[in-house]
């Protein structure tokens, strides 16, 4: 087992009678990209805010970088970086001034700040734009700069709260490349997201719903552990009618729509392809294609939420 970077024991946060985070426990190893996956309001931001010291936990404890978040918040703060969905740089300070300020706040020496500035500029891809105001930068660059600013003091752990909200897909990809580089260099990355495709980049994931962790593991583990039934991808012209027909059949466990396709999970004792063909034929519905696929995280997520008795949209 690798060195533990974050450890949470029964972390709970209540706002009045509402329990935002309910008895959450997990641990994160050093150098890991650890994802917290959940819908809006599921409690992932509240968890990250407790870990970073922005919120006091109602009960439970957690250690970050070996320090207790409630008893040694100063020690924790020295060792973490934080970046939130909101773009948190000063809009009226230039790129260089922002870097200098945030470096200074963390107590870096001038020499160190100069060194880290070069790194940050390069990391954010902003060579030659040191004197620009952040408002003049495209969204993706702002995000990278914010991350670089959160990393100036070379923290052991970086917390990213929905870091890619509102960024286009290409920049999102580049952003994740950056996260991977950081992790390879030994930084622990704790990231929350509601993008299922992003969750695939994580080493390990926790699925959180209504303040509780409902599943955890690597993306691969999640897919194989929680979905044992074969999943078929079905292509048909009349998606809705097909879905209704399929979900009424007792041999079929779950049916969900993915764009113009259907994902159908069939109880293991039956032959998957035969079941689909027979159901659709019985309802006079065309079938263009039906093939077995490796389930995606979205399948896992929908499956788990179904089990929780929730019929909400995953993303």
């Amino acid at each position, binding site marked *: 087992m690798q060195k533990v970077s974050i450890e949470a024991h029964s972390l709970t946060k209540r706002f009045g009678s509402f329990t935002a985070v309910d008895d959450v426990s997990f641990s994160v190893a050093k150098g890991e990209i650890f994802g917290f996956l959940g819908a809006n309001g599921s409690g992932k931001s509240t968890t990250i805010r407790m870990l*970073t*010291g*922005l*919120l*006091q936990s109602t009960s439970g404890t957690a250690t970050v970088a070996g320090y207790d978040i409630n008893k040694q918040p*100063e020690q924790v*703060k*020295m060792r*973490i970086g*934080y*970046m*939130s969905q*909101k*773009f*948190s*740089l*000063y*809009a*009226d*300070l230039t790129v260089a*001034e922002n870097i*200098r*300020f*945030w470096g*200074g*706040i*963390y*107590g870096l020496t001038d020499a160190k700040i100069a060194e880290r500035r070069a790194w940050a500029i390069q990391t954010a891809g902003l060579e030659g734009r040191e004197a620009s105001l952040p408002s003049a930068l495209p969204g993706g660059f702002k995000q990278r700069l914010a991350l670089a600013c*959160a990393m100036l003091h070379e923290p052991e752990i970086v*917390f990213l709260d929905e870091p890619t909200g509102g960024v286009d897909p290409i920049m999102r990809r580049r952003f994740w490349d950056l996260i991977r580089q950081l992790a390879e260099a030994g930084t622990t990355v704790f990231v929350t997201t509601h993008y299922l495709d992003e969750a695939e980049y994580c080493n390990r994931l926790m699925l959180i719903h209504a303040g509780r962790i409902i599943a955890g593991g690597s993306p691969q583990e999640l897919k194989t552990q929680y979905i044992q039934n074969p999943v078929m991808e079905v292509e048909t012209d009349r998606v809705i009618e097909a879905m209704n027909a399929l979900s009424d059949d007792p041999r079929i466990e779950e049916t969900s729509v993915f764009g113009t396709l259907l994902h159908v999970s069939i109880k293991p004792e039956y032959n998957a392809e035969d079941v689909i063909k027979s159901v659709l034929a019985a309802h006079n519905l065309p079938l263009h294609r039906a093939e077995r696929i490796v389930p995606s995280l979205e399948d896992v997520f929908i499956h788990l939420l179904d089990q929780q008795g929730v019929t909400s949209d995953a993303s």
Partner: protein
Amino acid sequence: MRAILHILRKEFLQLRRDPNIVRLIFIGPIAQLLIFGFAINLDVNSVPMIVCDLDHSLQSHDFIARFENSGYFPIVAYVDRIGDIDDYLQRGKASIAITISREFGRKIAKGEPAQVQAIVDGSESSAASVGISYAQAIVAGYSQQVMLAGFARRGFGMLRPISVEPEIRVWYNPDLRSRNYILPGLLGMILMQATVVLTALAIVKEKETGTMEQLIVTPVKTWQIIIGKLAPFTIIGIIDILLALAGITLLFGIPVRGSLVTLGGLSALFILTTLGIGLFVSTVSSTQQQAMMTAMFFVMLPMNFLSGFIFPIENMPKLIQLVSYLLPLRYFFEIIRGIVLRGAGLDVLWPQVLALVVFAVGILTLSAVRFKKKLA
């Protein structure tokens, strides 16, 4: 400790980039100084009068001349019918109307009571009450003279009127200019405007944009953030008070009778209180609009009206006077007027200074605790 230098540098960089800064620091105070200095004038040195003389006798002219010569009652018009008075008063062209009855001269000569009626527009009560006092005094003076003269004419020899004459000497503001009262107070107003709203806005803005959150996850201490935020506004406040002071002395010729050092030190003390109030407003507001509304309607307007800026506290009912003890501006007004107009020193002003100290410590502690609690 170096963190605070970085915070200060950041605050000043931001301040320098703020496009509104010149307007806030310079134009606002200067504009107010000019408006209050020139437009607001509560001096009651004249009460415009109309005269309805139904008698047109020697005596009535003599009587009217007494009013004219007093200097208080410039006569704006003579009317011949009582009905015309109404229009002048309604239109506000005159504040007092004197009607002299027919037979005034004849009755005076015969020693019978002659009727004179004064109609005063009471809507502007301060001018009205002053007008009433002086009119009364003039009439009584005339009465006395006529009476004694009458006896003299009837051959009883000249009795010299004996009188108790008040010799009124006005201290501190001999020309009785309302400006001299209002303008020193303006110093306090300007300070409050420059600090309360700006402080609250600057903090709430960081909350809105998320940078406050970003600051809190760093090892920076709360007090460092607070000091960093408050420092620029302290300096703005000091610049403003120097500016206003220069305007008051040079432009309006109101000299500072007391010690400038005391004035400066106590202004700084007052700035601490207003910064504390600004900080407090920021802890009860989550958007800039809320902060502005709160600062405006719950802090500035009541303070304006209840601290004795224009309307003296001593004229207010007891209950409101008690409320005014809760307002730091009240104490600062007393301090600043004491120093500027009366040349008072700490030996006289210490109760006010003590109140301000208590207030400053109280509000700063309260806001800092709330600020910290809100964030943690």
